[in-house]
């Protein structure tokens, strides 16, 4: 079927280019309207829709190949592009508008495509365009963080490219599941490439390093696409790869623990991306239909509440200019709308019933139980406690509720930011109350009811009681004015030292070799200054002076002209005699 297909990703990319060239006054309407067109295009795609474009060497590019799995991801990515577009309407920067729309378009491109070559093209487009969302912040820190981001993603992209190269050269053009094996080189290369984008430790350092340095609006986009596109690829390619469930559990706990001590708002939220993506990766590892539905649903919910958290944090930074939690306080009264939205997002991410985190997170945990992995189930619940402590308790209390900090509101928040936050908050609540709005689009058939007494009671107990340790330890809970080392330390300190030492070793070797050859050259020169010395010819003394010259001087070796003349004449005579008498 190759009927008329409107590619939502290409619509977003076109939106970006249009937004970049039109005057500022029109740009905001383009940014708000373009993603809505893309969303409409997404709804026009039905399951089974295809768009095949012929490429070189008889290869066909399956630019669009829709099934239940990528449709639901495409839907949330288009929705997020629309929310993000509204949130960034006030932006003056044409480059940021272009980068954000190309980035969202790239995410849709990866999601909707059916073959490896289209996938890697849009994958690299995402990496390249997202970089500019960091660089547009235009601070020294963001430039450096962006450069590190670029290096890590070039590494990941090249791993993926190498894996895809192996697949394509073996004649496998279409994206397909590799979980059943063989676990060959292509499997590992593609897994590493996807794992970089999914921020799987230890290669997650780029995320917590770069996302807090992005622009206020850029971070909202960043938080939504890269990791969730990687989750989509994990579900598509690696569903049922068992070790991934342990990787997921480690991620879930890792992010939660680091978030408890983190001081930078957006870095704390970035740690919770690692943590929440851990739930999805665990679902991919479990690999049952229920677990994969859980991972898909959680990606869907996560994009909504995480972007809302980033929007609220961005609004706080926009209004106050402060990004450190220990400098903030008492904003509930000064920014009531942001406070309400933040509370909704925080309740969602913690999995409080009637908000959308609950309806998706609990699927994965139930799937772990039903598949017979009790340790995974308990550890994921523990991670939920950590999420609740560091976002709902810590951020709400220290940023919004505590008294004694006089934070000045310097800038009025633009109306479009309020609208975007309002839409995000409404969606978090609507999906939380009516989970069937989401469940009906999930890729696999399942029998699951979130609102059982059992589930609700469990979360009430778990989260209510988790408040107690926080309040008992409240005086020590305020984060310190410090940064936390993470795996990016490896390439910011030891790796830098390694590179510097290798480079000084190379420089020293070069200098030493240069010196050595110079010495040989000089010695050779000195030796060759007078080749006649080899022949053990004593030079004659210079006439009149009695000096022996240092360097070769033909005059000191010249003999009188008579001697050669005698020899020449003798030879001549012998020759003539031979000719005459022979």
């Amino acid at each position, binding site marked *: 079927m190759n009927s008329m297909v409107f590619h939502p990703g290409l619509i977003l990319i076109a939106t970006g280019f249009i937004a970049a060239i039109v005057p500022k006054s029109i740009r905001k309407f383009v940014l708000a309207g373009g993603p809505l067109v893309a969303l409409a295009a997404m709804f026009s795609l039905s399951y089974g829709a295809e768009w095949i474009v012929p490429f070189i060497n008889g290869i066909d590019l399956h630019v669009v190949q829709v099934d239940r799995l990528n449709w639901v991801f495409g839907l949330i990515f288009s929705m997020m592009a629309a929310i993000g577009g509204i949130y960034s309407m006030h932006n003056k920067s044409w480059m940021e508008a272009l980068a954000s729309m190309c980035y969202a378009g790239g995410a849709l491109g990866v999601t909707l495509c059916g073959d490896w070559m289209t996938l890697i093209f849009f994958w690299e487009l995402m990496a390249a365009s997202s970089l500019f969302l960091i660089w547009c912040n235009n601070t020294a820190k963001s430039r450096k963080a962006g450069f590190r981001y670029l290096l890590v993603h070039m590494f990941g992209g090249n791993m993926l490219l190498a894996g895809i190269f192996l697949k394509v050269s073996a004649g496998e053009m279409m994206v397909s599941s590799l979980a059943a094996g063989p676990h060959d080189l292509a499997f590992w290369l593609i897994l590493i490439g996807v794992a970089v984008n999914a921020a799987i430790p230890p290669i997650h350092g780029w995320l917590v390093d770069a996302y807090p340095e992005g622009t206020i609006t850029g971070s909202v986009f960043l938080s939504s696409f890269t990791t969730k596109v990687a989750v989509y690829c994990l579900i598509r390619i690696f569903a049922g790869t068992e070790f991934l469930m342990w990787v997921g559990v480690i991620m879930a706990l890792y992010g*939660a*623990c680091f978030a408890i001590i983190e001081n930078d708002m957006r870095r704390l939220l970035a740690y919770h991306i690692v943590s929440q993506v851990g739930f999805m990766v665990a679902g991919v590892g479990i690999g049952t239909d229920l677990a994969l539905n859980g991972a898909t649903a959680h990606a869907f919910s996560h994009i909504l509440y995480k972007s809302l958290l980033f929007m609220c944090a961005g609004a706080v930074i926009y209004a106050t200019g402060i990004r450190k939690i220990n400098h903030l306080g008492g904003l509930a009264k000064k920014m009531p709308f942001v406070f309400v939205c933040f509370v909704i997002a925080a309740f969602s991410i913690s999995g409080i019933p009637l908000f959308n985190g609950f309806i998706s997170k609990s699927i994965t945990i139930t799937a772990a139980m039903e598949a017979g992995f009790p340790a995974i189930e*308990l550890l994921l619940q523990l991670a939920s406690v*950590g999420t609740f402590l560091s976002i709902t308790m810590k951020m709400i209390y220290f940023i919004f*509720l505590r008294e004694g900090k006089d934070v000045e509101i310097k800038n009025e928040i633009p109306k479009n930011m309020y609208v975007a936050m309002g839409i995000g908050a409404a969606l978090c609540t609507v999906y939380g109350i009516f989970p069937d709005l989401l469940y009906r689009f999930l890729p696999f058939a399942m029998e699951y009811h979130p609102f059982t007494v059992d589930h609700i*009671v469990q979360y009430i107990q778990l989260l209510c*009681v988790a*408040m107690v*340790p926080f309040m008992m330890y409240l005086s020590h809970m305020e984060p310190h004015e410090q940064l*936390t080392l993470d795996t990016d330390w490896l390439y910011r300190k030891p790796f830098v030292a390694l590179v510097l030492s290798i480079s000084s070793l190379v420089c020293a070797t070069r200098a030493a070799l240069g010196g050595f050859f110079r010495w040989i050259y000089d010695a050779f020169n000195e030796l060759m200054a007078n080749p006649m010395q080899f022949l053990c010819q004593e030079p004659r003394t210079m006439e009149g002076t009695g000096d022996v010259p240092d360097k070769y001087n033909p005059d000191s070796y010249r003999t009188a002209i008579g001697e050669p003349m005698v020899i020449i004449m003798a030879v001549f005579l012998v020759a003539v005699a031979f000719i005459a008498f022979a």
Partner: protein
Amino acid sequence: MQSLNKKKIYIIIAIAVAVSVVLEVLMAHPHGHNFWHTMPGFDIIMGFVGGWALILFAKKLLGPLLQRDENYYDGGDGDE
């Protein structure tokens, strides 16, 4: 949170938890069969012990081990 506030919150938590335990005993039909599914109030222990474990692990171990001065890397205020 003032101490009075704190006390109020503790009471609210206690009531909510008590109600939830009663509901659990009377109405819940746990899907799982391990002891943490069937034992009423297991999640209370989980939340309390787990909460403390995470807080202490992060604050007492991760913090001292991994937290550094803000200028640890290079200050970041200027380009090189």
